[in-house]
């Protein structure tokens, strides 16, 4: 699985809100911290395990917690059409 952000969506770090925003036709979603961190790594080149590795190096969390969160997020993001997997 190599997740990428769906073509009509744009991810943007927004200094005015100190958050990642997802922009799309007729909509804006302000992402929470972990959703923003995950999506920022979805460049269409990194695989899901590579994304989990990158997050594990950045954040200190017990084994499996990050992986579980990432897969749960991808399933939700895919159903919203944000991410292609």
């Amino acid at each position, binding site marked *: 699985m190599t997740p990428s952000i769906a073509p009509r969506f744009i991810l*943007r770090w*927004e200094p*005015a*809100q100190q958050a990642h925003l997802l922009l*799309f*036709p007729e909509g*804006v979603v302000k992402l929470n911290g972990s959703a923003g961190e995950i999506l920022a790594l979805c460049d269409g080149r990194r695989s899901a395990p590579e994304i989990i590795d990158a997050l594990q190096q950045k954040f200190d969390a017990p084994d499996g917690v990050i992986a579980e969160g990432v897969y749960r997020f991808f399933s939700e993001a895919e159903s919203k059409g944000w991410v292609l997997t």
Partner: protein
Amino acid sequence: MSDLSIPRGLPMWLTAELTYRCPLKCSWCSNPLDYAAYTANELDTDEWKRVLTEARALGAVQLGLSGGEPLLRDDLEVLVAHADKLGFYTNLITSGVGLTEARLDALIAAGLRQVQLSLQASTATLTDRLVDARAHALKLEAARMVKARGLPMVLNVPLFRHNLGEIDALLRWAAELGIEYVELANIQYYNWALMNRAELMPSLEALREAEQVVERWREAGKRGEHGMTLYFVIPDYYEGRPKACMNGWGNIHLTIAPDGIPMPCVEARVLPGLEFPSVRMHSLDWIWNESPLFKRFRGFDWMSPTCRECPDKEKDFGGCRCQAFLLTGDAAATDPACSRSPDHREVAEITRRAGQPIHFHMPLVKRAATAVIAEATEEVQ
């Protein structure tokens, strides 16, 4: 129809009305009646670039380039490129008239992300009569060009008595073309639409029928028969509930008129007694955060007791200030579209009349620079 899961207080949605000039003469146009007076004072390219930069710094992210017809600005490509460089998600809101392959390619190269195209009917006869121009074929061609380039597209259908029956045919066409979003926008009654309200306003019965057509298309979408997202809102005159206008005054929406006047909504200049500072004299930051105009109806303190004591005030913000003024004469009144408004009877009377057959059809007043003067002359005689 903006997403509600967004924070308050930043002008995240920016509408730049680049010009009020337009090749169409729609009788429901939201532009001011004296639109022609704005042409000489339009912001120039550098002024717009500065305004876009200031808006982006305030937290604006969604940019609608609107009008009039924005394609009449020959610096449109320059402005799109500037907006994209700043990080805006840029949407062209157009009639489609004036769009060519070369122009569209240049706009996409400059960073245009989305096109919102208006269409009024499924046949040339009806569209061209309603907009009073040979526009139908050009609109279909514009839609084809946009889809051929894979740009996401919103089809905007302004709805009123004359074209409510067109929904099914228009959706069939839109589904075939692969349009992603369709806004079935019952028109709101301001400016030109207000002048033509008696002719344009549909009966509740016709609206309910239209709603059922939309419901059938929504069901078809759930079965996977098309991929369109449909928006359909019954006009507030009929709902008994006021609209959460602009999600609150000076809350997340900012509109800038062709002459550089920032407004909480596109209609705000109908309100009397307000001073409208210009971006030519003040920073956008000051206008949004500090000007008396943008503070006037922010929050809840300005509200009438009807609204202040209402449990729904945080949902609908008391409705629309312009509508309150136009129908009651008091911009701080409860929006009379609300069934709790002491003035709701007037709205109920307007909708009751819309349900009755019209015996003496008045010709629709077409948007034209001379139309208002002609009206005034007739009244004097």
